[in-house]
């Protein structure tokens, strides 16, 4: 092993250090780069239909068995602006910045930070 190390040039050593640093940094960088609750995920029938930025204001219509559900993202919050399901619980829930709005009749789930990948770093759940 000593012979092997002695036979390496300075460039080899530098390259080794660079590769090691890059590999270790990559592990941390990939963790840091995970979403941090800034996405609005809209699922229809259990499948992700839209992934939208929470910090970009927009209004969109999501079709369902009870017609279009109008979802509004504004000022870092999201709400169901208009729904036509029987109890309109989703509409009554108002604005959220975290958690989920569920419209069971329309099979729509709108979540912000409620999913695993959107939990704040190192947490298993959030209460509130």
């Amino acid at each position, binding site marked *: 092993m000593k012979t092997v190390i002695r036979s390496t040039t300075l460039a080899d050593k530098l390259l080794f250090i660079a590769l090691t640093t890059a*590999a270790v940094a990559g592990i941390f960088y990939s963790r840091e780069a995970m979403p941090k609750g800034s996405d609005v995920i809209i699922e229809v029938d259990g499948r992700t239909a839209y992934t939208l930025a929470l910090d970009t204001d927009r209004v969109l219509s999501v079709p369902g068995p009870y017609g279009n559900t109008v979802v509004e993202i504004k000022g870092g919050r999201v709400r169901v602006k208009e729904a036509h399901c029987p109890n309109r619980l989703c509409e009554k829930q108002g604005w959220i910045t*975290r958690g*989920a709005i*569920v419209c069971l009749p329309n099979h729509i789930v709108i979540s912000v930070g409620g999913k695993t990948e959107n939990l704040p770093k190192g*947490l298993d*759940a*959030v*209460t509130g």
Partner: protein
Amino acid sequence: MKAVKVLTVLLLLTATAVSCSNGPVEYRKTKPLMDTIVTITVVSESDRKADEAIESAFSVISRFSDKIDFFKHTSELSAVNRNAGIAAVTVSPETLGVIERALYIAKISGGAFDPTIGPEIRMWDFAKKVRPSDEEIRKNLPLVNYRDIVVDRSRSTVFLRKRGMLMDLGGIAKGYAADLALADLKKEGIAAGIVAAAGDIRAFGLKPGGEAWRVGIMNPRQKSKADELIATARLSNKAVSTSGDYERYFIENGRRYHHILDPKTGYPAAGCRSVTVISDDGIFADGFTTAVFVLGPEKGMRLVRDCGADALIIDRDGGVHTTPGLKKMVAFENGH
């Protein structure tokens, strides 16, 4: 150069071995249930076993939800409400169980938590800033009284004495769902996990590394993304729930109108911004948050202590109140 390659490969192999080592790991699944998101995490050595256990627990919650859904015409709770002032209704053991516990919390809190708040809460629409008139609120108040719920355990029946009464179990149902799910997970052979029915959470056992589960507690007056949490709790074999005036609310003429109504007045309770309760059971954590919120910090803290639970109360001025036991489980974020 060859040595460098060998060393690099060795390094990468070691990293892979560490990350792929055998032994129990966490499995997590999410499902929309009870008009919210339910997330179940379990510790298991087998993904098949974990998946079966989680799906079984989801089914338990789904079946329970169908029975106590306030808005579902076919639920047992709807049958009880439709027959208010008319007849006693036979219900399942789960429904009877949750109603009996709701009555216990109502009694012990002197009615600060009252599951018959239905006639008042249904008149509010916090998303559309609709509030009932003083006259409407006053008119419905006689219908809010947990003493008018008659439970006959031997016959498994529930009767609401007055016509127009409406029982709403929303204040404790998710906590109880977490309890039911946990019992089912244990039955399926799972020794550790965490069930989160939105913010009503029950943790058991320890994480694979031997640590307690980490649960963030929301800041009721969040100003930025960095300010989202007020504290973090480390929990094992405990339940935690939070009620806050920031969940469903509107502000009119500088006054905040939120969804936690005082059953004695019909108006939003004004003593607290948020209440977090840590208890052994989900249903009590969930029910006590509402009761403590309505009672306010002083009386609320007394109730929590008398019941052997722990609490974190943020009062209406932002003051922090905690039980001595809470400090062992909770670490506050910087600046709080």
